[in-house]
Structures are given as structure tokens and as C-alpha cells.
């Protein structure tokens, strides 16, 4: 069994994001991390491997700096690392084509990824890739384990928990998982250091990147919050109550 896990390096959730011109200024991002939902997917992949064997390949489509994230993944137990050079691709369908081609080439028949990336929150990668590789897609799950030739995935729903049975090939997208990504140890770090990262291009994968059907117009920072209002004295009570009722709609 080959397990593929799709990872994306995003600005750390604690990093300050600044917009310069009409784009997020990536050079101003102080810390890049693995997207949190991808971390849950990676932990689930490691648990699948522990339970049933098989090699894990971690695949990312991104710039060179993403190699750090791949090495971090190797430190917790990923076997093979693939960096698809993004060549400035911003169109999510292109990213999906590249990832799908790399998954196919790896021969993996189960794919795990986060339900959405913490930077774009697009949520299209998992379903898109599953479509391209002809795999069933089970989205927003919190847990997965192998049963027979297939898998059982658990998903929280407003009315309770769903257990979804699925056969291979399949793709799972992770919501907040049951287990946080494990911490590496020194042994893992030393092994990760020796691990080669295979860097491939769209040509290597035989994917023709045509013109984009989608283009990103601009980024803008969230609107500045209006300043708070201050009321003093008992006389202001009716005003405050009225505002809470009519403007804030909280009473």
C-alpha cells in the first residue's frame, strides 16, 4: 500500500500578514509552517503506516522554501519527499493537475490532505485531485483506519458522527483530527537530514500548464475595526440598551 500525503507550506498562523501593493508580502512573513489541517492528515498517514505498513510519500507544490516543511515531515517518519516546483502557478486547477500527476506516478492508492489550506482556505485541492486520479473523495474527516481492503473514515456531523466506508483508490481531506501531529525526535531529525528531496517540474510530470482560467485580482487586508464606543454614567443606560438591541442585535 502506498500512502500519499499532500502538504502545503503556509504563513504560520501566528505570523503577521502584511499586504503591499495588492499582494500579500511574502518576504515579510516571519515564519512558514505546515498548514494545520495538513498536519492532521500527516499524522493520520503515519498511523495508517504503523497499522498496516506501506511507504508514505509527501508531495508539495511550492517554492524552494517548502523543502524545510518536507524535511520536517521526514523527521516524523515520511519515507519519500517530492517538491513540485510551482513555477509561479496560482491557478488551483493547475496545482491539482500537478499534484494528481505526482500521486499517480508514486503509485499511491490512498491520499490524505487537509480540507483546506490555512492561507487561501480554498478547499478545492482534495476534491480536485481525487477527481483527476479517479479516486473516491471523503471530505472533512477526523479519523481514518484500514478495514479489510478499504477504510473506515469518521466524520463529525451536526446530528452525530458518520462512519464512512470506502474502497481504494480514495482520498481523504482532514478537518481537525483526533490526534495532533507527533513531535519529531533526534533520531528522526538525523534521518531526515540524509533524505533526498526529489524536485520535479511540470514537464517531468507530463503536465501541460496552459493559460489560467482563474486569475487572482488582488489581496487586501481586513478592514480596520471601528474604534469602540465609551459610555459613562447611569444616564447612558437607555442609549446602550438601544444600541445593543438595534445595532449590535445581541439583545
Amino acid at each position, binding site marked *: 500500500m502506498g500512502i500519499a500525503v499532500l502538504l502545503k507550506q503556509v504563513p504560520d498562523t501566528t505570523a503577521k500578514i502584511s499586504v503591499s501593493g495588492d499582494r500579500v508580502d511574502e518576504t515579510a512573513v516571519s515564519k512558514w509552517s505546515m498548514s494545520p489541517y495538513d498536519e492532521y492528515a500527516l499524522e493520520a498517514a503515519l498511523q495508517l503506516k504503523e497499522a498496516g505498513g506501506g511507504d508514505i510519500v509527501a508531495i508539495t507544490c511550492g517554492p524552494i522554501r517548502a523543502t524545510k516543511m518536507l524535511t520536517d515531515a521526514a523527521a516524523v517518519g515520511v519515507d519519500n519527499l517530492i517538491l513540485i516546483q510551482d513555477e509561479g502557478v496560482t491557478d488551483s486547477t493547475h496545482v491539482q493537475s500537478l499534484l494528481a500527476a505526482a500521486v499517480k506516478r508514486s503509485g499511491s492508492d490512498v491520499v490524505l490532505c487537509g480540507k483546506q489550506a490555512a492561507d487561501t482556505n480554498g478547499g478545492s485541492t482534495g476534491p480536485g485531485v481525487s477527481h483527476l486520479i479517479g479516486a473516491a473523495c471523503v471530505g472533512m474527516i477526523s479519523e481514518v483506519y484500514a478495514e479489510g481492503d478499504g477504510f473506515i473514515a469518521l466524520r463529525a456531523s451536526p446530528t452525530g458522527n458518520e462512519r464512512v466506508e470506502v474502497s481504494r483508490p480514495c482520498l481523504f481531506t482532514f478537518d481537525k483530527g483526533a490526534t495532533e501531529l507527533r513531535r519529531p525526535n*533526534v533520531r528522526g531529525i538525523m534521518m531526515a537530514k540524509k533524505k533526498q528531496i526529489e524536485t520535479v517540474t511540470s514537464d517531468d510530470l507530463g503536465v501541460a500548464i496552459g493559460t489560467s482560467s482563474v486569475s487572482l485580482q488582488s489581496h487586501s487586508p481586513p478592514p480596520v475595526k471601528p474604534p469602540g464606543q465609551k459610555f459613562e454614567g447611569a444616564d447612558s443606560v437607555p442609549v446602550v440598551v438601544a444600541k445593543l438591541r438595534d445595532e449590535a442585535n445581541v439583545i
Partner: protein
Amino acid sequence: MAYEALDFYDIDSLLTDEERMVRDMVRDWVDEKILPNIEKACHDGVFPDEWRVDLGEMGILGAPLEGYGCPGLSYIAYGLICQELERGDSGVRSFASVQGSLAMYPIWDFGSEEQKNHYLPKMTTGEWIGCFGLTEPDYGSNPGDMITRAEDKGDYYLLNGAKMWITNGTIADLAVVWAKLDGVIRGFIVEKDDPGFTAPEMTGKHSLKASVTSELVFQDCKIPKDRMLPHVKGLKGPFSCLNNARYGISWGAVGAAQSCFSSAREYALSRIQFDHPIASFQLVQNKLAWMLREITKAQLLAYHLGKKKDEGTWIPEHISLAKMNNVDIALDVARMARDIHGANGILDEYPVMRHMANLESVKTYEGTHDIHNLILGRYITGIQAFTRES
């Protein structure tokens, strides 16, 4: 807010990927396990056993030692581990220093093959805790005059004497004890169940409260013949261990200082007095600038010393300078940070008073501040000033 360590001169860029990964691993662990629990551990006066398990699982105990299951990391990586642990608490770093540099190191360097194979694999995983017995109630800076004696009784050695201020003593599975055999200092491995050996805990500390400190008492303590470290005689044995531990402390002190700086900066920016954040006042800025200046210098000392350790071009005096200076400035940084926090600085909501109290111990143990100055004085002048004789 995620912790951003002060790194004004970008020491980070000098590290290898492996060193950075090890540092980040320990940093994350400290954020997750130490910081939320340290005040309770200090209040209860315990070193939680879970921390021992985690340190073993991370694989950082005995960091720079190679073979016998040990990590084999660089001395820079070992320094970074100490820095991150002490950013959490000096007591946690003390645990790791004692286990790695004071208990594992002498077995690794001076032990027999059998001793190394028997003890080191279980010590690097944290399964067995070690401690180090050199200091005695009446002999601290002057260990050469120790009273603890070993006698060769043919089939076994008989130990008599007492050690004091022993980190990890009560929780240790084994102690590396320095005692005089026929007037010569030798190292002995004493196991916790050896007859005649007890390790009562010392209580009432205002410092290193999450670290276990003990006495070791040997009353006709019988130990098998194969427990003496065969390959070292004299003070060279314990001093070699102390060199490694002191090296780690020079990094650890930087971690404690970074923690205090970070807290002071944040506090100064958010605390409003006279309608402005106190960070906007010149006297406060002067203090923060002084902290940044001294921490940056201490980082460079520690880093360069680490390089010399890795290259093997160091001398013990280099370590004395770094231990003495870095702990000294860290203690001053902690006091200044407490001052910037005003009354809030005495609360356990902030780490500064805890670091300050810890660093008072760190200033004294592993060679007092003054002893390190005397070591440097002897280096400079060629004249020893430890005693009036000679």
C-alpha cells in the same frame, strides 16, 4: 502569541538545518509542556515524571555523546537544547545537564566497555536517571579536600561520607560519586538500592523549585568492584564533566535571559502610564537596549565557544568566561525585567521572578561566579589565588 526569541545578530543563520530542527523541536516542547505547567511544578516542588519521559523520547539526553544509543549531536545543538530548556526553566535544563554532562559523560569517557553498554542506552532514553556527587557539606569550591572515602575490601568497595546539593539525587537510579581511594579521587557508580546508600531530598529552596535537590549519604555503603570508573584518577574526572555542564549553562542562561527580555518588552509595550506605553519612555528603552546588547554578546560568546567545542580547540578558561559572563548578565536581565514589570513582576503570571530566583543558584553552582574569575585570574597572571598556600 508565538514566542519569538531575541536573535538580533541572526545567529539562526549560522546553524545547520539539523541544529535548527532540534532547537525547534525542544522549543515547541517547552511551549507545550513546560510553560503551562512550570508554576504548578514549582509550587509543588516536583519535577514531573512526564518531563523525564518526554526528554528521553525526544532523544536529547547526553546530546553530544556518540555511540551506545546516544544522540551524537554537535555541541552547538547541545547548547541550543540547553538554551530552549532554560527558556522554560533552569530546573528543567539542570535535569538535562546533570543527566547528560555529569552522569552519562563520565561513564562514556572514563567507564569500562561493560559499564558503557550497561548504563548509557538506558540513560539516553531517560529510563534511568543519573546524578553526580562531588560537592560536600564542607567542600564546595574546594572539592579536592573532600572527605568521602572508598576502601578496597577485597571483594567490594566500602563508601563512607556525604554529598550535598545533588540535583536529581532522590529520583536517581544511579549516582556517579567521587571519593578518595587511598588518597586519590576516583569515580564510582552507586545504584539506588545499594546497601548503605540513602538520598534524602533537601527542602526549603527559594530557587530551582521544580528541580529535585538532595543529599547523598553513604554509611558503610558496599558496592561491587566493577563499579569504579577505570580510566580516570584525580580531579580531572569531575572537572571534565563540569566543563561540559558549564558549557551547556552558558547557553541555558541565554534562554532564561531571552525569556525575561521577551516578557519585559511585551509588558512595556502594553502597560500604559501617564497616557503612554512605558516602552515609549527613555528610561525603559535604555533598559531594553541594555538587555538586547548583553544578550546579543552572550549569544555570540556561547556560539563561538560551541564552535570551539566542536572543533576541539577550546580550553577550560574559555568555558569559565562564558559560564560566568552569561549567567551574570542573565541574572541582571532578569532583575531588570522584574523592574520593568513593576509590581506585576513578582507574580507567577510572568516568568521573570522565577528566572531571577533560579539564576541565583545557577550563578553559584557549577563553579561560582567568583571561582570562574579566579580561574581567569590564574590564566592571565600564572598565579593561583584560590588559596594562600603553594
